[in-house]
Each structure stands twice: as C-alpha cells, then as structure tokens.
C-alpha cells in the first residue's frame, strides 16, 4: 500500500521538484548516531521528563555512567511531561520503546500486564541483602508475584511551614516527632492563629474578616495524596483491599473530607485547593507570606531550600494515628530491551545516592533501607549539601518513611485507577472544594460512580 503511493507520487512529480527534494533531503536526513552500535557496546535509551534541574542532574549521571562503563552507552532523552504519553505510546507502537523509562503508574500497569515491561523481581532477588530497599519502593503486580519497577525515589508527604510567620504570631513550631504530632483539631487552632485578614486580625478573633484574608494558615494540595493521607490516618481508605468496594463514603473517610472542607469554608484557614493546582507553587506562596503551612511532597525540599525565608518541616497532623503516604513515579525497563542486564545496571546506578546529585539536593529520598538506618549513610544523604535538608529531617523524613508509612495507596495496586480518579473521584472532589455540597454527598457520588469502574487489583 504505502510503497505504491510512494512510487505513484514520484512518477507524477515534475523533475524540477526532484532536484529541490534532493537538496532538502541532504539537509534533512540526520541519521541516528550509528557509530557506537558496532562492536559490543550496548546502546541503551533512557526517556524521562522533569524540570531543567532534574534533567541536568540525570544527564550528568548518564555521562559519568558512560565514562565508567565503556561497554554500555546510555542516551538520555528528555521529553516534556505534557506530551510524554504520546511520545511513549508512539515509540511502543512502532516497536521501538526505550530501554528504561519514567512511566506514569496508570500506564505502567497495563503495559506490564501486556508483557511490555520486564519483571524485575529476579533482578532484585539477586541483589545483596545490605542493598535491600524499603518495601514501599516496589510496584508489584500479578498479585505480588512480579515487580514492574520501583519508584524513582522515596517520596513522602510532610508538613512545610514558614518560621517567620509562626514567630510573628507567637505560636510554637509544629513538632517533628510522630509521637508529638498535633491532632487535626489542634492543628486547625494553630492555623487559625496564623490566618490574618487585612486588618491584622487572626481567624480566632471575632472581628476577623474572612473576605479579605491576607495570609492563610494553610494551603491544601489538590492532588489525591492531599486528602488520602488523612483518610489513612483516620483508618479509612478509598477502596477495600480487594479493590471491589468503595470505602470513600464510609464514616472514616467522610469525617476527614468534611474536616478538610470545613478548613476552607468554616475555619477560613485555607484557600480552595482547586486554585493552586499549578500556580503559584506552595514554596512561592510561602515566601510571599501568603500561606504559613502546606502539606506537600518531600521532593519539594529542593525548592524550599532555595527560598530566602526561614522554613521548616514537621510531622503531619493526624486523626487516629500519625502516618504519611509514600509515593513515587515508577521507573521501568521495557521487555523489548536487547540488554536487560546492562539496563538494570544503569537502573541501579540512577537509584544510587552516591551517583545522582538529586538525593542530597532534596528532590529524591533514597530507596535503599540502609540510608534510613545507617547513620553514616544518612549523613551522606542529608548533610551532603549543607543548607538543603533542615535538621528535623531525621525525624520527619527518616522516621516517618521507616515507621509511619501508610499502606500503599491504590495507585500502587488498583486496576482502572485512571478512570476511577478521572470519572469518579475528581469530579466529586471538585464539587466538595467548591463548597456546593458536603462531604457525605460528594463521597456518595464518588462511590456510586466508582462501583461500575472497580475491577479488583493488579
């Protein structure tokens, strides 16, 4: 089919066009770098997204890997996040997927299910015991029998705060140890004292003007981990463990959702989370004195460390037990790779805090358990670059990752998660955050729409 079209189009084209084409052809064909493929050099393609900073750090890691591994040549290919899905699917469809890649969890599971991703379980099994990873690192599938990959890093949700605003309001800083963490109600009281209207009254004052708030005590993230963390803390969940029954409309979850809603519309301590999806980011809001606290990922330490304000991290407030969610983007190896062993070697290389600067610079936390237990390694990671991690990191990040991690969120195991989020959860949460309906109504609506979409677990 295609060949006939090509031939017939050539026949019809007048000669002069051919010359023109020959000219541009010469300019346009930049063949793939082919020189290295010969001999026994393993060519490995690595696709990723991320900020210029992340890109640069990984490109440096690739360079040093290539320099120390003469038989392997890795090419990093950075693609804008907005169209990463198109790019990867086109590469996969044309039978030319990358060897190793960042992949959204919603895509990783169906890919793994179709046999497109390498099962890494045997590879991790061969690793020495002292290299073992935190259990939260793994993306299991096939009911725990296989591993499609680990997260890029260990990412936990924690509390960030602006010390200056606490000092000004005369409020003690949030505790950093889980045992001393504030309950949600204690936390709301603190946030009220930090919330100021344009006349300088705080939200506990009777003269407080909620229509003219200058500083909010809190900024709520819109992402699912923003509310799921606290639902877990209240011993609730989004769905049951089999992934067959919604739990989002059960009292444990509804109580949390209602409290979060009240924080916006009753307590007036937080703006609506729908507004801060992309901009301005929480660190900037904090620097401009617009907010005093926010829940956000550990991966934001890198951004906060560049602020010109005194900031700190603390233990999340809790409902029934203090805990946090661990999450990260999966990093996978495609089964089409010609060099699985070499690719896995690179896979481990970019998970190694000794090799990639992003760990000590505050974007990534290690996956290896020893970094959370061995003081020397911990120091290497947390103090590797002075001024990045605040001193309380040993409690807030290390202790929480090790001892207060919630069970893996549905993103790590629930089938059809993308549609469940897009079609059931997000629209209901939008209405909750708009203040139009209460938590029970929103949760019921979400649960109702979830039911036909639930297909169990991977």
């Amino acid at each position, binding site marked *: 089919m295609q060949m006939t079209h090509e031939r017939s189009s050539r026949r019809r084209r007048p000669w002069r066009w051919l010359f023109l084409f020959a000219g541009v052809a010469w300019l346009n064909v930049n063949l793939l770098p082919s020189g290295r493929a010969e001999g026994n050099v393993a060519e490995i393609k690595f696709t990723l997204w991320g900020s210029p900073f992340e890109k640069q750090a990984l490109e440096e890691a690739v360079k040093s890997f290539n320099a120390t591994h003469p038989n392997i040549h890795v090419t990093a290919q950075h693609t804008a996040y907005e169209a990463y*899905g198109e790019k990867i*699917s086109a590469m996969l469809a044309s039978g030319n997927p990358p060897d190793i890649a960042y992949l959204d969890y919603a895509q990783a599971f169906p890919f793994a299910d179709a046999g497109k991703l390498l099962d890494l379980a045997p590879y991790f099994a061969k690793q020495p015991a002292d290299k073992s990873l935190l259990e939260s690192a793994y993306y299991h599938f096939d009911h725990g029998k296989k591993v499609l990959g680990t997260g890029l890093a260990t990412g936990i949700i924690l509390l960030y705060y602006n010390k200056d605003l606490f000092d000004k309001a005369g409020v003690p800083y949030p505790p950093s140890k889980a045992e001393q963490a504030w309950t949600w109600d204690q936390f709301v009281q603190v946030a009220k004292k930090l919330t100021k209207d344009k006349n300088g009254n705080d939200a506990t004052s009777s003269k407080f003007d909620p229509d003219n708030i200058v500083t909010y005590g809190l900024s709520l993230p819109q992402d699912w981990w923003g509310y799921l963390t606290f639902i877990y803390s209240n011993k609730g969940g989004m769905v049951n463990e089999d992934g067959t029954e919604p739990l989002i409309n059960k009292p444990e979850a509804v109580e949390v959702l209602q409290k979060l809603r009240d924080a916006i519309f009753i307590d007036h301590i937080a*703006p609506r989370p729908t507004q801060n999806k992309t901009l301005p980011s929480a660190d900037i809001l904090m620097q401009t004195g617009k907010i005093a606290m926010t829940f956000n990922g550990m991966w934001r330490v890198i951004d906060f460390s560049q602020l010109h304000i005194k900031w700190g991290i603390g233990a999340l407030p809790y409902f029934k037990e203090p805990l946090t969610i661990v999450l990260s983007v999966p990093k996978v190896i495609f089964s089409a790779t010609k060099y699985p062993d070499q690719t896995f070697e690179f896979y481990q290389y970019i998970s190694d805090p000794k090799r990639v600067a992003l760990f000590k610079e505050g974007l990534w936390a290690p996956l290896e358990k020893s970094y959370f237990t061995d003081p020397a390694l911990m120091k290497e990671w947390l103090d590797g670059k002075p001024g990045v991690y605040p001193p309380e990191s040993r409690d807030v990040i290390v202790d929480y990752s090790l001892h207060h991690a919630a069970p893996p969120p549905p993103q790590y195991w629930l089938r059809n998660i993308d549609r469940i989020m897009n079609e059931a959860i997000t629209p209901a949460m939008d209405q909750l955050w708009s203040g139009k309906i209460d938590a029970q109504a929103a949760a019921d609506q979400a649960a109702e729409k979830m039911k036909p979409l639930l297909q169990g677990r991977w």
Partner: protein
Amino acid sequence: MHHTAPYEQRLARTKTKFLVSRERREMIWGLTCVAPALAGFLFWQVGPILGSLVIAFTDWTVANTPHWIGLSNFQRMLFADPLFYKSLSVTGIYAATGVFLNLSFALALALLLSQKIFGLTFFRTIFYLPSTVPAIASSVLWLWLFNPEFGLFNSILTGLGLPKQQWIYDENSVLASLILMNLWSVGPLMVIFLAGLQTIPKYLYDAVAVDGGNAWHKFRFVTLPLLTPTILFNLILSIIDTFQVFTQPYVMTQGGPNNASLLYVLYLYRKAFQEYDMGYASALAWVLFLIIALISFVVLQTSRRWVFYVGGSE
C-alpha cells in the same frame, strides 16, 4: 468593459476551435498543479485516517495485540458512557457560542482596522499579537490572570468594588472564561477577514457613495455580500477549530471542575494517551468527525444561497 463585443466573439471562436484540446490541456495542467498536494494527501492523510478507522473497531491499547471487536466501541459510547454525552454537550455549547463570538469579534476588528487611520500598522500588530504567544506561555499567563486569590482580574474587580469571580474554577463560569480567553487570540481570523476586505474593489464603494449611501449601506450592500466567501471560510474553519479545542483546557482545567469543561477532544485525549484505550478513542474521533462533517456539509449546502463569488461559482 469597453471591448465587450470583440472579446465575446474572440472567445466564442477560440472555444469552438480548441474546445477538445483545451479541455484536455486544462485537465493535465490541473492535475499537475494539485499533484504534490494529492500525493501528500494520499501519503500522510489517507493511510493514517484509514488506520484510525480500523483501530476504532478493535480493542487496541498500544501495548496489546489488537482484536477485532466490531461495533462494541460505538455501542459502549452510545449506550454506556455518560461522559460521552457530557463532553458532547459541553463541546456543543462551547462551539456554538465560541464560533459566533469569535467571528463577530474578528469581523468587527477587521472592519475597524480597514479604516484609513493613522497608526494602523500598530493597531493591527497589537490585535494580532496575542495569537503569536506560544500556547504553553499563554495558558500559564491566563491561569495567573484567572486565579481567584492572586489574579489580575479579581484584583481589578475588587478595585472597582465588584465581587470576586471564580473564573475557570467554577462549574458555571469555566466555559465562559475559556471562550473569553479565546476571543483574545482571534488574530488569525481577523487577518483572513482583512485580506478578504482588501479584495473588494474600491469602485463599488464609490458607487454607493455616488448614490448617496452611508457607511451602513456600504457595509450592508458591498462589504457583507462580497465578504461572504471569506465569512464562509472562517465559519467552516472556526467550526472545525472550536470542536477540536484542546490545548488550553488540557493545561488549565483538565476538564474540571466536575467535568464542566470536559471538551470532546480532551476526553478523547484522555482515552487515547492516559488510559491507552486507542480503540475507543478512535471511535470517539470518528463520531466527532461525522458530527463536524455533517455540520460543515449543512453550512456548505446553505452557503450556495448566501455566498457570492465575483469570479463565478465555478
């Protein structure tokens, strides 16, 4: 037309003499002229389009081996997918309002900017400028402007003593906000109108003036009828464009809040590149294609009644 008679005679003579050969020659020339475009069309359009049609009848997910599932995708769309209808109605409202407002606004601007006034070049450039802003930057920019807490718009409203709006963050105002934002970049439509306005012979206006007509008469009896081919073009283009609007809602609202801005192509994109349901997405695309084609067909059919070609309707 001073030499009408000899011209007609010469034409008639030529026609009888070269009728057959001229027709053939014209055909050969015509085919040669369209050959590159036709080749490109066959190569880069027909193949992929047929490909997508085939995919619409399968369960292809990019990763799996596709199976032929007949009309299942279409059945699911019509009978078991409330979001399909939701996105259809959102898109219908958006397109109907957007097309009308975009065309009127662009035409008004073009009329304004075809006046002979000092600084015309500057004004034209200013009105065209917004459409040169790269989509990624303009989306971010408008997110800032719309932001209810920190945005410029609400800051202006507050300054005027008006209540703050939620803009794209409220179910009831999100579509209106997106339409408003789109009005900002009607530059291309305006330029096409401007180019169309320049093809209107000046003597026709002079004729109206001689007959004592005013500006409205000039517009009503010269500008509007002679601009109809351009209006038709912009109309079709706007219909196609607004039905397929994607980038800004994708970056700015992701279809929210509560699916109030779930425009059709956004939904299609979600199916194709987030859920990798390529088969279903292709089926969605073909239904959209049929809808746009039907509307365009109706417009083109009725256009025979209101579009006026100086060069004849051939």
